[in-house]
């Protein structure tokens, strides 16, 4: 959409007087917003509510007793928490940057006119979306053929290139970057690499921001690959830590053989309410903080078109 069209739209909308319909619509959207936001709010409230209070009165949006117990018990994970943070940050940053670079190069290549291989490359990109080996085949091939086990590559590579993201980047190149611009650069003597890195890549920024942010979220939130492949503590990402916490709570709840001393050390209750919520905050907070900076690219940068070139 051009700037002119956007301005015209704003004028068009604000020129109308606000009627009853608008008020009802606003209330409906507001209601849905509350539905989406309330559970997140509950996490923050519960993390700072008193463990014993929740144990006795249940979760509440208005707890009567507040406490920092939850946050304290998160800090008790100490080094493991720091280590898991580092692993998750490493995987997220490396995976996202690598993925953006190689996917945009691929998208650029298949959108070149007169490049005969681009048809084949488009089909090659599309097939994995139609047909793939599934979890089990992947698991066996990665562990037995590639010999990768307990390796961070298994957290990075599987999420690195996705058909959908290449399609989004490709659509953006086709729709929003004038082909004449790149042709002109070539005529002026810029090589293919230079055209890509100095003309296309900077213009691709809105799409890179939107896709990159979604990739970063996918990396940050990936628990499945970690659960399947990661065994050693120093490679454990945050999500696996979260799963382990859940498992140990279940273990303690279902196991009567836990020594009395251990139970007493935990204040006679297993810290499972405010402390898990506090852990959830620690895990989701970084994304919440970064997200508003990227939101402006969402509508502009995420458009999907057909794959056929």
């Amino acid at each position: 959409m051009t700037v002119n069209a956007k301005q015209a739209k704003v004028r068009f909308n604000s020129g109308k007087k606000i009627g009853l319909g608008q008020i009802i619509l606003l209330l409906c959207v507001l209601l849905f917003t509350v539905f989406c936001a309330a559970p997140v709010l509950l996490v923050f409230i519960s993390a700072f509510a008193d463990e014993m209070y929740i144990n006795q009165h249940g979760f509440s949006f208005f707890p009567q007793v507040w406490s920092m117990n939850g946050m304290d018990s998160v800090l008790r994970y100490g080094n493991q928490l720091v280590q898991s943070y580092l692993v998750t940050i490493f995987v997220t940053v490396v995976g996202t940057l690598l993925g953006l670079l190689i996917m945009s190069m691929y998208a650029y290549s298949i959108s070149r006119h007169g490049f005969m291989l681009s048809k084949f490359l488009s089909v090659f990109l599309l097939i994995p979306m139609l047909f793939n080996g599934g979890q089990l085949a992947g698991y066996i091939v990665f562990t037995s053929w590639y010999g990768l086990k307990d390796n961070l590559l298994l957290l990075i590579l599987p999420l690195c290139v996705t058909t959908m993201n290449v399609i989004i980047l490709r659509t953006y190149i086709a729709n929003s970057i004038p082909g004449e611009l790149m042709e002109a650069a070539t005529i002026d003597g810029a090589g293919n690499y230079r055209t890509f890195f100095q003309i296309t890549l900077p213009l691709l920024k809105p799409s890179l921001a939107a896709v990159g942010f979604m990739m970063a979220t996918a990396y940050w939130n990936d628990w499945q690959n970690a659960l399947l492949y990661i065994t050693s503590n120093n490679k454990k990402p945050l999500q696996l830590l979260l799963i382990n916490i859940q498992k140990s709570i279940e273990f303690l709840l279902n196991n009567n053989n836990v020594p009395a001393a251990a139970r007493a050390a935990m204040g006679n209750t297993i810290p499972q309410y405010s402390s898990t919520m506090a852990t959830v905050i620690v895990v989701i907070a970084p994304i919440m903080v970064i997200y508003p900076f990227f939101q402006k690219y969402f509508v502009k940068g995420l458009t999907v078109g057909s794959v056929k070139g």
Partner: protein
Amino acid sequence: MKGFFHNTWKHRAHVVMALPAFLVLLFIMYVPMSGLVLAFEKFDYSKGIFGSEWVGLANFEFLIKSKNTFLTMTRNTVLYYLLFTAVGTFLNIVVAISIDQLAFKRMAKTMQTLMIIPVFISYAAVQFIVFAFIDSRTGLINNTLGTNIRFYSKADYWPWILLIVKVWKDTGYGSVLYMSVLAGIDTSLYEAADIDGANKWQQIRHITVPSLIPMVTVMLLLSVGNVMRSDTGLFYQVTRNNGALYNTTQVIDSYILNQILKSSNFGYTAAASFFQSVVGLLLMLFANFTVRKIEPENALF
């Protein structure tokens, strides 16, 4: 042929640029396809994929004989796909149009920001949030209603719980894609309709909705190939992988994940996996074929 080589050499820079992603796709997506032959073998880890004993269709026979598990998980997978796709697409469009139509632009923006947040929370974390709502003793729902419903042991409730969680998590973000289409609609269309005396409803029906159709088609087509695949986190994490709920919550993907973690019966698991891949492919080809017959413009390939 000579022309082809000449063309490729001329575009060698593009070949080089496509190569890294090509290799990742090859090793991560294509090579594991060969693992599908496991479905016809009695897999032995030490002998590898091509060394294991060939057993023909035995794995499939077993799978079909274990009727209950297999039928239940296939039924669940398909029904959840239909439910989520129908409700999800509808809500995505309704939310996108509502936000687009709101005259309070700044408020609309803020509300959209809040709506998108749940998509960024992993299912490993979501399950703690769901617990806070539905636990039988401390859960918010039971406390508010003064009841003592044991959601974690009653399978009947779970289709609704999972639907609500899915809608909560994905609707805000799902509507963004449709908003990008709405933002691209030529505003002169609305102005012309306005002059011709069309009211808001008529404008939405005759301008907004039709312009969303191609996007809806593309998104549905992209999803059809995944009929047999599910959002594993939703079914594995949110249900806490609770055996008592399998009747309504076990899907093929969560079954396979469980089997891999228990490392048992790779043969049957592979058969289920094979079934999943092949059915997905057939449905996708069929769907694309149908769309191409009706509206060639909207077909995916």
